[in-house]
């Protein structure tokens, strides 16, 4: 173990970590938006919307992310749809994450006691307000820990976007390993950056849980 290999390549690793964070963050945010729509479709009273939601989840959760990324980047180009690498990377992460996030949100929504929405209707809340002010805030609070799970998995899965030519953390670690012939140091260095990113994310999750916790302790 030669720690100076990590120190010498610190700049490259930090830059690559920035790429990993940027791609993952965009994937998380867009995935959350699509995941919300998937969840809404799956709890909709309309049968055809529920079915579309179910097909979406089965497709994007069942097909490996690697295949989805290759499909978006290489296969769509066959039909003249030239997707830039960064768009393919973020899009692939977002589409696949949306299936998982949609399921998490649906579970949380089911766990909000029925009396809550009944009380809101009895008080004369409009349909949209029942969602915006009563159901969504409570569902979001319940779903924070599994959502943080999913975000951490997404950050680790973002190593796959190197197949469409994006130099993120894992790819740069591989390059350093082959340049210096010190694979152990290179991967430990990359791994420490992943750990740091995930610990910060988990910290944000704990903070959000504290902020949204029900007062009065339990």
């Amino acid at each position, binding site marked *: 173990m030669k720690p100076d290999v990590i120190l010498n390549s610190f700049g490259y690793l930090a830059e690559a970590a920035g790429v990993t964070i940027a791609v993952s963050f965009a994937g998380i945010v867009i995935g959350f938006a699509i995941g919300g729509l998937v969840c809404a479709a799956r*709890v909709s*009273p309309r049968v055809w919307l529920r079915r579309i939601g179910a097909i979406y*989840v*089965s497709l994007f*959760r*069942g*097909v*490996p992310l690697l*295949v989805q990324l290759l499909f978006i980047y290489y296969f769509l180009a066959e039909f003249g749809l030239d997707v830039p690498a960064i768009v393919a990377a973020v899009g692939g992460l977002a589409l696949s994450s949306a299936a*998982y996030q949609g*399921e*998490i949100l*649906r*579970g*949380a929504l*089911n*766990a*909000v*006691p*029925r009396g809550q*929405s*009944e009380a809101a*209707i009895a008080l004369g809340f409009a*349909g949209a307000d*029942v*969602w915006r002010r009563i*159901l969504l805030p409570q569902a979001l*609070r*319940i*779903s*924070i*820990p*599994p959502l*943080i*799970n*999913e975000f*951490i*998995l997404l950050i*680790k899965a973002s190593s796959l976007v190197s197949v469409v030519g994006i130099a993120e953390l894992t790819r740069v670690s591989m390059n350093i390993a082959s340049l210096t012939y010190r694979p152990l140091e290179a*991967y430990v260095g990359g*791994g420490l950056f*992943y*750990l740091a990113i*995930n*610990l910060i994310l*988990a910290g944000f999750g704990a903070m959000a849980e504290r902020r949204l916790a*029900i007062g009065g302790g*339990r």
Partner: protein
Amino acid sequence: MNADLLWRYLPSLVSGFGVTVFCWSVGGAFGLILGFAIALARRLPFPPLRWALRAFVEIFRGTPFLVQLFLLYAGGPYIGLRLGATAAGVAGLALYSSAYFAEIFRAGFGAVPAGQIEAAISVGMAPFDILARVALPAALIAAVPSIVNMLIILSKETVVLSIITVPELMYQVQTMAAETFTAFDAIFAMAAFYWLLVECVSRLGARVEKRVTAFLAHDGARG
């Protein structure tokens, strides 16, 4: 696409799929049990235990599965822990997934309305009955979709076991690709097996979910 070749390698692919399903189901089952125990223990009024478990969750969740598996399999003998490849693989899957399951169960228990627990206490239910008959059924409503998510992700993580020579599906597929120079056929076969597994898990999950949410009426009143 070479059907003849697939037919010839079918026995080794099926045996690999069997090993994959074995490692995934045993590792996932122990991960669920361990995760449940962690989620319960984190509710005890004993701060040092809570901090230790929080650290366990953050470390096993924050580092890649491959690294954990290497440390367990290659590093284990240094501390006197000698595991065979399959045993190390199963133990690794269980430890890794338990961190995620612990968070899922914690969120599930957090979603149980406080009034239900208070009501159970006030009618004089024993602590174990409160857990088994009130808290757990209510917690599972929020937890089951996330558990199914995680089990699917875990089934895909089992490919990593091929690196420590567990003869699971990925290992057999790589052997087939190396012996026949047909990467496409081998990977197609693998995709088909995985799709079968994920589809079965999703279906099973949907049935379990129907069972645990049976007492929620699903008509109207939701928005």
